[in-house]
């Protein structure tokens, strides 16, 4: 084939675009029929499909309906309703479309939401005869909440009301008033009859009083949202790769750029660890070398310096406006779970690249999306509620406000394996208290104290109790050192105990076997440490790769007793300055000696000089 022709093909390729459009509305208001008609009248059906569906109808002795083209699954044909969001593909003169047929039945709201969350534009169908119904309003609200801005309203089944302009006008007036209250302004209201083909692809002779666009023309007039290159750079770190096969020594920070642009040489900061570095290269496969990368691209970077960061951090440019960082988030949450969202239960939040434990701290207001009434006295969030809540995480989350940067301003909540809710962030909350501190305050208040005070114990033992926490990367020799330290102190007559990690894992942690519950393992470690230190002992234990916030939690749980942090090997804390840093253990006697000097200096080991 001639090269020029090839070039031409490539050119037509780059100018074409694709748009996801969701079709929604109350159950039985004709969504699937609208789509079936759209496909049929644009000649977009594959030859096999129409014949196959017609043959199936004949076999089952029922009249053919356009909706059957989409409701391709058995359950749906039997019940005549759409259960899940189906996608279908068609082309207009202007562009390609993926049409998402979302179910109208309340029971399948999560499927409707999944369909709408994927969409760039929406067509909301209202039955001319039935008028505005509960889910017409709820779906309208959810479109507004999910951030779909290109919206057309199709008043369908106009044939059932004799194509009466008054009926249409009344529905438009009623619905426009509702949408105004939620700040959603549709681009068009279109009177149509999908069954008869009026105003779907071709204009309607029966409604000459309507001069606006057909449904297809409305779609074509929607503008495609461009990648967001004009906002601050946000790059959720998906993973850090070091594939060593074939001598590859690149350490690549992988992810997708959500907003903004970046170039080689830019200074970057990772949040929440607040570590900084500089972009050394932009990596790719089967690509010519890149100096810049922009929003929308799944890409990877190498850095100038070797810093220790985790998947889930948010990489930003030092020069840009920084995101918020907080452990308290105020958000609008749409709850879809089978069980209500309650306080005191541990959930998981997935926000950009991060996954963290999260708790519902309070419910400010609950909205009924079908009539916009609110209530302020809820203690929990029920299924299908939209609620303004305060959430609390253990470690600060890095995020933006949804109104400013949508991509890093929204999240989902996981309840016991299932995504049970979605939320948009309204702001962070200034609140000095946190769950762990509140818990420890409560615990100390309720503590059943014996007749032996800390003073009596330390007088008797010649020591003040402390948690000696040996931190550092895995395999840095922490537990060997900890055991040697225990033996040394013991031989000097001290009251000391070494707590091995596997002793807790197979002891008090035996009921949990899930690495994602790391915070729970650490919580229990903190509580156990507190018991030992309360007994007046020096407790020595180890923990790998603690970050600042995890360390803080253990210290809080061990309080009011004290903690000494000895870090072995690379110091991966970003803010914490360990009480002692040992780069590598060359001679354990020297290391133990240094630690003992520290314990003496801090008056944990009390010595009497004669």
């Amino acid at each position, binding site marked *: 084939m001639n090269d020029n022709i090839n070039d031409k093909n490539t050119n037509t*390729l780059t100018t074409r675009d694709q748009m996801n459009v969701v079709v929604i509305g109350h159950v039985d208001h004709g969504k699937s029929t609208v789509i079936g008609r759209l496909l049929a009248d644009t000649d977009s059906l594959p030859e096999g499909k129409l014949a196959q569906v017609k043959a199936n109808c004949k076999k089952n002795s029922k009249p053919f309906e356009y909706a059957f083209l989409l409701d*391709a699954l058995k359950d749906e044909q039997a019940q005549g309703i759409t259960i899940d969001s189906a996608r279908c593909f068609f082309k207009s003169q202007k562009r390609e479309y993926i049409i998402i047929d979302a179910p109208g039945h309340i029971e399948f709201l999560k499927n409707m939401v*999944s369909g709408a*969350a994927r969409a760039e534009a929406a067509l909301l169908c209202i039955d001319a005869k039935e008028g505005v119904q509960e889910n017409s309003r709820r779906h309208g609200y959810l479109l507004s909440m999910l951030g779909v801005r290109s919206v057309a309203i199709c008043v369908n089944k106009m044939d059932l009301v004799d194509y009466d302009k008054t009926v249409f006008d009344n529905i438009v007036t009623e619905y426009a008033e509702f949408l105004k209250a939620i700040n959603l302004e549709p681009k068009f209201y279109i009177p149509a009859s999908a069954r008869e083909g009026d105003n779907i692809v071709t204009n309607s002779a029966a409604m000459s009083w309507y001069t606006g666009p057909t449904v297809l023309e409305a779609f074509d007039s929607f503008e495609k949202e461009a990648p967001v290159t004009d906002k601050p750079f946000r790059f959720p770190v998906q993973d850090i790769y070091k594939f060593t*096969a074939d001598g590859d020594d690149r350490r690549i920070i992988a992810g997708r750029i959500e907003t903004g642009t970046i170039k080689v040489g830019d200074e970057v900061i990772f949040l929440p660890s607040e570590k900084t570095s500089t972009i050394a290269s932009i990596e*790719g496969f089967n690509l010519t070398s890149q100096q810049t990368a922009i929003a929308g691209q799944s890409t990877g970077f190498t850095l100038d310096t070797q810093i220790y960061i985790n998947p889930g951090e948010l990489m930003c440019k030092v020069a840009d406006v920084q995101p918020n960082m907080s452990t308290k988030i105020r958000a609008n949450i749409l709850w879809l779970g089978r069980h209500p969202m309650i306080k005191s239960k541990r959930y998981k939040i997935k926000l950009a690249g991060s996954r963290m434990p999260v708790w519902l701290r309070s419910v400010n207001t609950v909205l009924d999306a079908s009539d916009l009434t609110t209530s302020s006295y809820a203690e929990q969030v029920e299924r299908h509620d939209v609620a303004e809540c305060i959430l609390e995480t253990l470690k600060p989350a890095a995020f933006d406000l949804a109104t400013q940067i949508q991509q890093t301003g929204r999240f989902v909540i996981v309840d016991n394996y*299932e995504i049970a809710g*979605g939320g948009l962030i309204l702001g962070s909350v200034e609140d000095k208290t946190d769950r762990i501190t509140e818990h420890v305050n409560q615990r100390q208040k309720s503590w059943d104290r014996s007749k032996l005070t800390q003073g009596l114990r330390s007088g008797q033992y010649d020591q003040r109790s402390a948690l000696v926490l040996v931190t550092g990367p895995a395999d840095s020799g922490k537990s060997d050192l900890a055991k040697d330290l225990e033996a040394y102190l013991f031989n000097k007559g001290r009251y000391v105990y070494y707590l091995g990690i596997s002793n807790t894992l197979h002891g008090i942690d035996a009921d949990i076997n899930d690495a994602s519950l790391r915070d729970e393992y650490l919580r229990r470690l903190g509580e156990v440490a507190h018991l030992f230190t309360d007994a007046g002992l020096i407790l020595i234990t180890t923990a790998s790769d603690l970050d600042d916030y995890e360390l803080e939690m253990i210290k809080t749980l061990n309080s009011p007793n004290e903690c000494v942090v000895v870090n072995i090997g690379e110091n991966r804390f970003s803010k914490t300055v360990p009480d002692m840093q040992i780069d590598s253990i060359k001679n354990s006697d020297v290391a133990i000696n240094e630690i003992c000097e520290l314990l003496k200096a801090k008056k944990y080991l009390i010595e009497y000089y004669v």
Partner: protein
Amino acid sequence: MDQLDVLESQGIYILREAYREFKQLVMLWSIGKDSTVLLWLARKAFFGHVPIPLMHIDTSYKVPAMIEYRDKLALDWKLNMIYGQNTQALEDKQTFPDGNATRIQCCQNLKTKALKNTLSGAWPRWILDHEAGKYVRHTDTEPYTGVIVGVRADEEGSRSKERYFSPRGEQNDWDVGDQPPELWNQFKTDFAPGTHLRIHPLLDWTELNIWEYIQRENIPIIDLYFDKGTGKRYRSLGCYPCTSPVDSTSTNVAEIIEELRSGKFSNIAERSGREQDKEDCNGLETLRRDGYM
């Protein structure tokens, strides 16, 4: 970014999410164009490496050229290549070509059952030993909990309802009416013991997108898709007793694209050459609810 860039970026994003979240992850490679594009996306996602094992279900009725192509690419690209097979059904001749099963029963035996049991580790897995250049019994029998599949929503009705991350029950069953919500590229990556997730990075791609991408990236695709002088070629690859070649003189990728855009196939369903789809009203859906790809 043009449409292919957007699709590629989303595919890579999904692959990386899967790789991040699933320890026992596998990618199904049928040798066809879609899963070969998927394999290419993996090389893109992981910067030239493929850190995920590939699995092929060998029905023994595949065109021999497919197996040759599979093994050549596996060696060239240093792939961690695994295959599984329902050897019992083949020995017992419980197949359509042997006359002892309908087309759908045959698919259930040679594909669905083989797939389920190879995924769970109940049946032997065979892995390519790159040094010896042959397959040996795989020692890993842990169940796979993340299974990456190259299905596209435009292929047929039931596939159009899939999520990007779609749960399967303990029996590999798919509850279409009760799927998890999928919001803003946050996928279901948590799963109960005994269940697994099917992961679909190519869900939004059309057949035409696949060919355009093959052209753009110059992906080495198996030549059964091209006419080699007989006036026939395969449009969709399956087992030879149930997959007919189509009449077409396209000899290269550019000609196939032209044929799909404006030529004779612009209006004919891709799977029209697959006979098992026609046996029941919803043949493929019946198969898929039970664990088929």
